């Protein structure tokens, strides 16, 4: 066991899988010589050569479009989009092809592709480097959307994503890249995509979050537990799509109260869908409205105004308490 940060854990997953499977190749801007602008692919060029770690020209549709071609012809590409803010330049390739090849050919052609991208705010970055747009991907049928929250699950989910028979949009909370370390088992560990994880069981209230919001959420949960002795069930969503409705609904059936914490703007988001699924299946068990702590429906502000825009532990604590006291 080694204590790794998320950058190292992601790097480990790719190195492992590339060593195991020669069909796995990496492509993207600055992923080779530079090791990625966040160093996630560091050292892989040296280890696996430039045929397998491909520094591409600067063109996102080019990266994902060619990766789709690689995938339908037997490779397992792991494409990097340098920041999720630039994913929209290749959105038609995901919406029109990666998500559909299987369905439109009833399985004759498939696209085992991973599209990695750092997302999210609070790193004092320039415009388009701070957004949280997982819902844009999650709304598209035929795409899997995964967001890890810690080094260990990052490694285990990235392994799963590379082995997955379909396209996985793998969004990495850049704010958590180097924020903390965690024991990552030496032996291979693969988590199932499509499942949420009950991080901590509880009976009085369910808190659901994912990605970079897990850390302030955990802090908030700890505060409330300490202060009020409440028993809180904490769920890490991990897969945005297809969403693990059962785990969420089972929890809320038990607790009757729920808070969802997300970084993204509110409208038509993952939190909307969580509430809708609870409504669809277990509305009557609710003892209080599901409370949302989210980004607002405004253009993501530049970093001088970001701190107050993003949900922090205080807001989450208040939401939990309000929901308990409802």
């Amino acid at each position: 066991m080694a204590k790794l940060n998320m950058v190292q854990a992601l790097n480990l997953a790719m190195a492992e899988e590339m060593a195991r499977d020669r069909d796995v190749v990496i492509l993207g801007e600055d992923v080779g010589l530079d090791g990625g602008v966040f160093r996630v692919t560091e050292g892989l060029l040296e280890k696996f050569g430039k045929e397998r770690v491909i520094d591409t020209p600067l063109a996102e549709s080019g990266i994902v479009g060619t990766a789709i071609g690689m995938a339908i012809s037997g490779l397992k590409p792991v494409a990097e989009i340098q920041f999720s803010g630039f994913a929209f330049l290749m959105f038609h390739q995901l919406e029109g092809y990666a998500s559909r090849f299987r369905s439109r050919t009833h399985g004759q052609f498939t696209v085992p592709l991973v599209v990695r991208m750092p997302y999210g705010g609070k790193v004092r970055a320039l415009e388009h480097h701070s957004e949280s747009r997982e819902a844009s991907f999650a709304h598209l049928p035929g795409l899997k959307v995964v967001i890890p929250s810690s080094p260990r699950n990052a490694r285990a989910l990235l392994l799963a994503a590379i082995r997955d028979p379909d396209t996985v949009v793998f969004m990495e909370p850049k704010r958590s890249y180097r924020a903390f370390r965690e024991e990552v088992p030496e032996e291979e560990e693969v988590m199932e995509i499509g499942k949420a994880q009950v991080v901590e069981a509880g009976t009085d209230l369910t808190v659901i979050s994912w990605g970079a919001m897990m850390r302030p959420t955990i802090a908030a949960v700890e505060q409330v537990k300490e202060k009020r002795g409440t028993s809180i069930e904490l769920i890490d969503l991990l897969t945005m799509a297809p969403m693990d409705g059962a785990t969420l609904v089972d929890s809320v059936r038990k607790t009757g109260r729920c808070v969802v914490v997300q970084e993204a703007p509110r409208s038509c988001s993952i939190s909307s869908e969580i509430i809708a699924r609870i409504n669809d299946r277990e509305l009557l068990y609710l003892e209080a409205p599901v409370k949302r702590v989210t980004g607002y429906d405004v253009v993501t502000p530049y970093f001088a105004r970001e701190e107050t825009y993003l949900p922090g532990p205080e807001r989450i604590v208040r939401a939990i308490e309000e929901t308990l006291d409802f």
Partner: protein
Amino acid sequence: MPLEEIATFSVSRLQVLDEQGKVDSALEPELTDEQLMSLYRHMVMAREADQRMLKLQRQGRIGTFGPCTGQEASICGTAMAMGEKDWLVGAFREAGARMMRGEPFLRQLLYYNGFEEGNYFAGNERVTPVAVIVAAQLLHAVGIGYSIKYRGEKDTAVVSFVGDGGTSEGDFHEALNFASVWQVPVVFIVQNNQWAISHPRSKQTHSKTLAQKAIAYDMPGIQVDGNDVLAVYRAVKEGLDRAYSGGGPSLIETDTYRLMMHTTADDATKYRNEEEVEAAWKREPLIRFKAYLENKGLLDEEKQAALAADVKAEIDAVVKELDEWQLQNIDQSFEHVFGDKHPEIALQQAEFLDELSREEDANG
């Protein structure tokens, strides 16, 4: 060095058969009589299939489609040049080439009748389905080219089609750039049929030729008379040979004409005049190839009649198959969202089937 010319470029145009079917023997490709006659039959089949589909569409027996009449040389000449292991990454106006690569005509009819079943057939690992989003498929071709190079597959390349309109899309540019940077074995065929729906070639781009767009990538590019099947064959063969031997990608502009409407939903008389179309019919590719075959003594009236009857019989048989086709597995959409079925998709599938059965109960 003040103002110095640092690079020069040129674009050439290839013609092997002139409009009367006279061949330039220095450029005449080496094709056996059987090959020539087979190529001719494919072109006739493409033309006749198109015309039958127009009828079927008017009768409401298939949906909207885009006829390829007039482009048979560009389409079939390309397929004729392809080797066994090559990939075809088409757009939506190359029915003849698809059939030459093994796609049964029935599948095409199914596709245009709204069945996903029309997108695949036994043995089509190397023929990708119709691609509707203009130019996006070119990037898939480049990625496949990368796989071929990565694996060191011998005598294998990718042929990818796009239209004159498609050259304006960003993906066209990205595909040609990636292909040339990677030096992958891809031959890009730009079918310049002079129109993108109602938009004429002259307003699609300011350049005099489409072939010269290759210069932007230092990629070999050539314009060919796209109504001359031997010129198309020759140019594509050259491109493929270059690709097989590690010479990287090429661009071929086939200068041809869309003789029919854009699709059956389109009324071309709204935007182009009859004279232009009539003049184009005089240059259509079957006339001159037929003359060439007659000159060579391979074709006469009798043989032509036999071939026509044969093609008609083939088409009739397929249309019969189509009429017998039944919608099965109505819930296929749920079966193929992912390779592994997710419980929530299964829930929705159950819901869907439940709704269906309730509807049947109500109606029956």
